[in-house]
């Protein structure tokens, strides 16, 4: 299945792209997607935050085809 992935702030710069479409096995968790991305990009990134369809999720959250997944560093607004 395919999901769209967005990156923000320092992670976007590290990835060299703001978004991509990623192929992943059915019923994968969001952490599995994250692992596959950082392995394919050969990067390390601590304290990543994860959202699916614009809501925060836990790392074991199961993805569905067409989900919008976002990875980003700790937030620093206000």
């Amino acid at each position, binding site marked *: 299945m395919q999901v769209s992935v967005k990156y923000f702030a320092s992670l976007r710069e590290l990835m060299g792209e703001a978004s991509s479409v990623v192929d992943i096995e059915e019923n994968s968790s969001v952490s599995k997607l994250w692992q596959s991305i950082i392995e394919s990009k050969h990067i390390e990134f601590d304290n990543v935050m994860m959202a699916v369809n*614009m809501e925060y999720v836990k790392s074991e959250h199961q993805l569905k085809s067409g989900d919008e997944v*976002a990875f980003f560093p700790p937030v620093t*607004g206000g």
Partner: protein
Amino acid sequence: MLIELRKESFNAYQEMQSYLDSLELAGKYGATASFVGTMRDFNEDKKVTFMTLEHYPGMTEKHLETIAKEAIEKWNLLDLIILHRIGKVKIGEDIVLVAAWSAHRKDAFESCRAIMEQLKSGAPFWKKEETSSGAKWVEKNTSGF
């Protein structure tokens, strides 16, 4: 309830007054509490010249609305503003305004503080500061408690 992200600079006190003037709250509210966050020219011993605020279009607005709606229910607020800058912010400009109106001070005080802390810890914004030693992403927010 006013939830807004704004690219242009604003004066928090004028925003608060003009929003209040647009409401029909006279006689109903007895307490106003507000927090205004303003752009400094230093951070962690470094001189800062300006900063850029990135956000996640769609999720940021949604997250702020959730915080606001929960606060209105929990603290019995009459009305509320959350106004936040995005884009390039200069020294001395206001970054964020949270204002809460209620019948009694406890609700206004407590909600304003809680909204601000929730915004700092969860709303998807990221600051990149231009400092004397180059551009730098702010790594994390510290707790205000």
